[in-house]
């Protein structure tokens, strides 16, 4: 699968990490050096890239974790069917369907002809910006 590896200690706010099989963006990290539980522990708070669910992970800083690889692409909207958007990649000219982004700010800008930035993470696609 399209992942790299790092340790919990290397994660920073804004890093991407897999939690419960979901690609997530880290929004907060708290480190605790507790004698009681051995090595230093980090509590990672992250938000799922798809679905915006909050996920947390507590682990020693030397614990290995998966980092999803984010591929960034530019596409153009061909059609808007309500729930789904038909998009064409502006490099490969491949066309495909993609979910309507849930962010309110995108709603007005989503129309045929608009250029968007979309990401491919773990074989799933998401619109992150409308130009």
């Amino acid at each position, binding site marked *: 699968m399209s992942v790299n590896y790092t340790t919990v200690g290397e994660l920073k706010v804004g890093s991407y990490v897999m939690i419960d099989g979901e690609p997530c963006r880290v929004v907060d990290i708290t480190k605790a050096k507790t004698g009681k*539980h051995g090595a230093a522990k980090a509590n990672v708070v992250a938000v799922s890239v798809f679905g915006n669910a909050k996920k947390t992970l507590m682990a020693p800083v030397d614990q290995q974790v998966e980092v999803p690889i984010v591929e960034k692409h530019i596409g153009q909207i061909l059609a808007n069917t309500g729930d789904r958007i038909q998009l064409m990649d502006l490099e490969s000219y491949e066309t495909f369907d993609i979910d309507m982004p849930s962010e309110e700010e995108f709603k007005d800008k989503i129309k045929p002809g608009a250029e968007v930035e979309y990401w491919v993470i773990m074989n799933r696609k998401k619109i992150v910006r409308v130009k």
Partner: protein
Amino acid sequence: MKREDLLIDPIVDLRFKDLEKYGELLSLYEKVYGFSAASLVKAGRIVRSMVKGADLRILSFTANLVSTGLRGLIADLIRRGFFNLIVTTGGTVDHDLARALGGTYYKGYFESDDSMLRELKIHRLGNIFIPYEAYGQKVEEAVRSYIPEIVKVKKEWPVYELLWEFGRRVNDDSSILRACNDLKVPMIVPGVIDGSFGTNLFISSQFNGLRLNLFEDMRLIKDLVFSSNVSGALLVGGGISKHHTIWWSQFRDGLDYAVYVTTAQEFDGSLSGAMPREAISWNKVKPDAKTVTVYGDATIVLPLLASALLD
């Protein structure tokens, strides 16, 4: 003060055979009789007849004792078959594992400068000093090295079976977990998640899918209680270990033998301080059961009581 000046004299484990050269000590207290001495003598007699007469013999105790030399004595009480079910608190697993894996605890004192101890990375448990590296780190190492092979067998474990797996892997004759595994005596730890062991299991579970099934522990204790003819318990200390023991006993109309060793008082209505006669009203102890409460610190009382079990 330097760290090495505080960590000098290690805690060693008392063994049952150490009692042999002193013989049965309770006859001394028979002569004294007044006041708590009489309860100790009575407790010795009840424990003796319980070991002979009960097919379900429960030892419940709290984790603090496992930091002391009583750890080896408790392991031997299991090894010698005096008890065939253990009910205890989460910290028992922590201290037993830590010490089985070479964590050394030291003789200290109550009147310590705790802020200094914190600076020196030493925990204080009563008058016992526990270096950080002798405790949490040991438990974490055990979980991180054993769990990956354990989850290969299956993901979901009853706690008592998981504890046997840990007992099987530690090479320490005075380990309680080891004694439980060697004799296949179940250790029931209803509060297993409360402590270093539980926390490390949780951390581990995020990566390997480990699951605890506490209902299987309940099923086991239920089956043991329902299939028993005569049941007895030596309950050392209070809290969840005491309650869980008497809780399940109610389903067979209560314990036939109950010896409480405690420093807790009944006036505040606490479970820990409640006397055996209160448990009668809850069906947790039979009205005609042989019962006694010994008021005293278990670190003094338990070796004396155990001497009643010498041949």
